[in-house]
């Protein structure tokens, strides 16, 4: 017994660490986690192993909070996995650091992935000429609204930005103790300063053709000012200055605030807590040029350049990204699937999903907006600078033009650096 206690951990450590270099062993890291999705991934990995008995797959699940730091430390200390789930916002750093393997040689000849949507293939290239991941789906913003609160305020779900501002005001002023907008000022709060600005700016881009940041434009600042006004006029809860994802979603389903811009993955949580008849989802409001710009993010499966089993790694990525597995995945995770024709699946036919599929169908009216994730500096900009300075604006400590200038200067410099290097 004592021997087991003594050698057991050693043996385990040997099994975990020592086997990495052996052919046919794949270490897979998952970073955006939930119990349901980890379970599905395990099932899919088991199916892959059954089809490829010579390969063994080890799954490492890292909870999203703190995942960035942990994965970074894994890479820097040489414990590099073969296949990794790569959120778009991390990609620029890993691509720049030459940690990811271009997938084009395999992708070109892949039959399974021939039906990928065009937007998926574009997104996977990050504005460069190589494909560094196969996205497993899009996280796209749409507008959730509380039917009861909007009815009490006597407004309809908004379709334009002007209607949206009026609806926010109506709920906040006519329904006692309720707020029109679920504002996200804390963790992940960079989000507030993207979509509203591009909608007023009438563009899905963040830079003009000379590489200057559009935050210096009056139209972008109008979007920022709108959010600041919401907060200062009391159209969003006072606490929302420190709200993150959980708080805005809770604020919405508890009926504290009436409208929320979120991805389809929030639908799962909201549908659990709220009667499905009490809320609806519509595309994001359109701006002065009649077009809407839903903020679109994605994540996917990438292969590391350090992997010793690249062919097996590709097989796994291809398996997870194939139409059947991706459809299962999209339903559980709450992302928009990547293969053409997947939206015909009955699971996406419900009333709530219409908000996203209407967006996708009217591709002239709704242009996907992808933040400049190709810039390595974007992570710090979005996660830190925009949150801190955003809070300063909300509290009236700094003016919108002043902060916008700071952002524009930083982003223009980063864009110049990127253009010079590519």
């Amino acid at each position: 017994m004592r021997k087991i206690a003594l050698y057991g951990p050693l043996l385990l450590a040997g099994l975990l660490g020592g086997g990495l270099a052996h052919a046919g062993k794949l270490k897979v890291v998952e970073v955006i986690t939930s119990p349901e999705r980890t379970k599905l991934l395990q099932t899919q990995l088991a199916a892959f192993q059954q089809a490829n008995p010579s390969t063994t797959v080890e799954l490492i699940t890292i909870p999203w909070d703190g995942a960035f730091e942990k994965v970074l430390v894994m890479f820097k200390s040489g414990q590099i996995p073969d296949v990794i789930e790569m959120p778009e916002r991390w990609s620029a750093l890993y691509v720049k650091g030459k940690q990811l393997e271009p997938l084009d040689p395999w992708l070109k000849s892949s039959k399974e992935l021939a039906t990928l949507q065009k937007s998926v293939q574009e997104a996977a290239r990050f504005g460069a000429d190589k494909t560094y991941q196969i996205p497993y789906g899009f996280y796209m913003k749409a507008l959730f609204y509380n039917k009861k609160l909007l009815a009490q305020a006597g407004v309809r779900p908004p379709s334009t930005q002007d209607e949206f501002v009026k609806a926010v005001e109506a709920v906040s002023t006519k329904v006692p103790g309720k707020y029109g907008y679920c504002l996200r000022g804390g963790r992940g709060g960079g989000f507030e300063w993207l979509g509203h600005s591009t909608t007023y700016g009438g563009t899905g881009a963040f830079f003009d053709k000379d590489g200057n940041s559009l935050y210096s434009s009056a139209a972008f600042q109008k979007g920022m000012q709108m959010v600041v006004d919401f907060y200062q006029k009391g159209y969003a809860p006072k606490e929302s200055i420190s709200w993150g994802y959980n708080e805005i979603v809770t604020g919405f389903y508890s009926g504290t605030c009436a409208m929320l811009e979120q991805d389809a993955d929030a639908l799962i949580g909201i549908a659990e807590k709220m009667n499905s008849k009490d809320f609806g989802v519509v595309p994001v409001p359109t701006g002065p040029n009649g077009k809407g710009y839903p903020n679109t993010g994605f994540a996917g499966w990438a292969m590391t350049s350090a992997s010793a089993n690249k062919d097996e790694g590709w097989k796994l990525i291809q398996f997870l990204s194939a139409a059947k597995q991706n459809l299962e995945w999209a339903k559980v995770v709450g992302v928009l699937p990547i293969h053409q024709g997947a939206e015909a699946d009955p699971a996406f036919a419900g009333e709530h999903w219409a908000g996203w599929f209407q967006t996708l169908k009217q591709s002239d009216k709704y242009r996907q907006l992808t933040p400049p994730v190709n810039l390595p500096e974007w992570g710090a900009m979005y996660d830190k600078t925009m949150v801190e300075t955003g809070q300063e604006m909300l509290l009236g400590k700094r003016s919108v033009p002043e902060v916008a200038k700071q952002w524009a200067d930083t982003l223009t410099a980063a864009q110049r650096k990127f253009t010079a290097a590519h």
Partner: protein
Amino acid sequence: MHTHALSMESKTLPPQAQRAASHRMRHALPWLLLAPALLLVCGVLLVPLGVGVSYAFQSMSMDNLFGEAGFAGLDNFRTLADDPKLGGVLRNTLGWTVYSLVFQCGLGFGLALLLRHSGTGGRRLQALLFLPWAIPSVLIGLVWKMLFSPYTSPLPHWLAYLGVLPQAADILADPDLAMLGPVVANVWFGIPFFTITLLAALQAIPEDLYEASALDGATAVQSFVRITLPLVMPTLLITVLLRSVWIVNFGDLVWIMTQGGPVGATQILPTYLFSTAFTDLNEGYASALAVAQLVLLLVYAATVLRLRRRIMAGRTEEST
């Protein structure tokens, strides 16, 4: 072969040299026996510390995240001297530490005095009181964060009803009050440590001292000031030293509750360091911040230890 030669040699050594050799052996033996432990301590403590300090003199930023770091000389420390945010961060760190410490120590000491003569029931209570100490900081942070939110807890509503808060609002969202949130959570967490250590010190004070002073007509306040306080002082100072170093380093609680916000109102050195390393990805500068924190804490520890030694020396003088 070698040992044989050695024993031959020792046989032929003059008695004086033999004595010197055995003397050396006697001195070396404890070190030899300690060697494995010392090597382990060096391996897991000093080497990583040295590596961490060396990062402060390298340029390790987003631009060479996975590449070779370049030697930066004192650049990171120059950045530190010019950092416009650092002053606020240091003020916050001081406030966070002093408030947490004063309330933990005061309440913990009070509780220890109450529990001193409490008998069996008190001993059961002691076990219960120690509970917060056993809860992981992540959980403490999350629970207190929920307690401060008017949407998930009645606490802000009660405070508003009692007139403590003007309205039922989340103090963590108010830059002027936000620091109170983590401080309250930390006080709740840290009281037991003071209670337990000070209770042990209190129970070590002989009862006859109090009896003698009572016979001499000392009041409760007098016997507290002249007997209790001086006798627990050495323990108190060590506990204060340990706790204050731990509190300064207890950035995880603050990070979980506020991430240093809003508007940097709760940004203390460890959270600032963490976000510099992992959001700005400037590990060189983060290490320089860590070195600065280490130096500040060493100076502080040296001061407290000196103070303690002086008190102890004063006491021996008095008693002789």
